């Protein structure tokens, strides 16, 4: 069994347990253990772009220190926001040693100093580079035949270029995974549009508009569901369909899925690891219609 240090993050431990559980179980089926950090804190949520606001980088760097203390040089995570924050803060201190020294000076009373050598990886990168989509294809016992899926990357997986897990303009990593599961990836031009992000707290209307644009585009291109890697994108696309219905009277009823849920189903795992009860739009009727569950 391969082991990799895993940072679940707060949302995956709470409202996105469907993402966390399906990932852990799928990886186990692939011979990998997602080894949760024994101690962890919030990642900081948003990568601070202010050049003089180092305190906001203490949280992500602390997680890299915990990984380093375990003698590991890689840390993987699933949530796009966690990935982005960890990746960007790591790149920042790797590039700017003065900032690293300042953060270390602040944290060193209790924790070891960060040496800057941990690599932050999104789980999709491990699936692609360490396991290989061809190998995954071989292990698929329940091909997701006839399922047409639009990949939705949102902002944080491919921007900025330094933190991108794939091509910035035309990422295919999620689509390639979908195809290797036996489903059909459909092209959707909205794949890297913003979902409206945290506007969902202050202005649900703005997010409902964004979500409708993304959802209707996916449907126009033949998708029967949207696949994502971000709990916030998931929430905005799934839950805000309520607002779209109220506002426009249109019931799109398009299921939103995490890529790990599809991976789990393809690997023959039961729907219980996918926790579909956490979805606003229930994907089960679609999956039943395709004889997947």
């Amino acid at each position: 069994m391969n082991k990799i240090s895993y940072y679940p993050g707060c949302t995956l431990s709470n409202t996105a347990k469907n993402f966390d559980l399906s990932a852990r179980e799928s990886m186990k089926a692939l011979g990998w253990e997602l080894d949760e950090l024994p101690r962890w804190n919030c990642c900081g949520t948003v990568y601070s772009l202010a050049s003089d606001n180092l305190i906001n980088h203490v949280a992500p760097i602390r997680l890299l220190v915990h990984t380093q203390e375990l003698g590991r040089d890689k840390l993987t995570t699933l949530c796009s926001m966690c990935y982005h924050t960890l990746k960007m803060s790591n790149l920042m201190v790797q590039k700017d040693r003065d900032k690293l020294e300042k953060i270390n000076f602040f944290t060193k009373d209790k924790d070891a100093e960060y040496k800057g050598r941990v690599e932050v990886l999104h789980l999709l990168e491990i699936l692609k580079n360490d396991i290989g989509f061809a190998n995954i294809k071989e292990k698929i016992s329940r091909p997701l035949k006839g399922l047409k899926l639009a990949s939705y990357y949102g902002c944080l997986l491919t921007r900025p270029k330094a933190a991108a897990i794939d091509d910035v303009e035309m990422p295919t990593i999620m689509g390639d995974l979908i195809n290797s599961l036996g489903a059909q990836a459909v092209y959707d031009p909205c794949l890297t549009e913003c979902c409206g992000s945290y506007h969902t707290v202050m202005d649900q209307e703005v997010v409902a508009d964004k979500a409708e644009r993304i959802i209707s585009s996916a449907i126009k291109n033949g998708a029967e569901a949207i696949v994502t890697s971000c709990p916030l994108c998931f929430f905005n696309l799934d839950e805000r369909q309520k607002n779209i219905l109220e506002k426009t009277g249109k019931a799109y009823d398009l299921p939103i899925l995490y890529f790990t849920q599809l991976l789990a189903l393809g690997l023959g795992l039961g729907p219980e690891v996918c926790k579909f009860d956490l979805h606003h739009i229930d994907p089960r009727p679609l999956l039943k219609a395709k004889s997947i569950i």
Partner: protein
Amino acid sequence: METKVNLIPIHVMGKQYMVPDTLTVMKAMEYAGYQLTRGCGCRGGICGACGIAFRLPDSYKIEVGLACQAMAQPGMYLAVLPFFPNKRGIHDLNKVKAAVDTFKALYPEVFKCVSCNTCTKSCPMSIEVMDYINAVIRGDIVQAAELSFDCVMCGLCTSRCPAEISHANVAILARRLYGSQITPRAEHLAKQVEQVKAGKFNEGLDQLKKADVNKLKELYKAREAEPDNTPDEWAPKSNDYL
């Protein structure tokens, strides 16, 4: 025989006193003439009433501790913090859920935590304060309750927190939710209360009340008590009163 006392200078709220170097800060203050009616409680490091903040010479650090535990050190400058204002999220325990949303509503500032760990560094009980705050953030109320169990509510973490969190009260909420909604109900307790009400113990208590001192001593010596290091399988020989 003459005992030599080594006197050292300490500064209490800016005024210098010469005190023996073997004393805690609390005893040193009393030696210097302070009569403590506030900021003094158990004197055993467990009530949390005697918080202090201090600095030492040749160090930039702000240190905190309990006056009854911290030793007087040469050249220390200290101030007492018998009380530190804490925010209290008023709630009806029967109406709040054991979920992260309860903390979002009552203590939204918890989510301002930047994981600086200053709270943990300031805790005189060596609690992993930052870790329990983060457990709250991710909705892990069990871990928050367990990690915070030793809290004495001195408020020193709050005095140092850049996110202005009232840690001790957040922890109390976590433990109240844990105790009332997460831990299993003690079914055997209700059964025992029923037995008490039904008078199962009346006769035994009456006998004790009527017994003379010698009889009581005898019964006390012969009583069967749970041993100090109780093995897992320990059970009393008689089940009469269970």
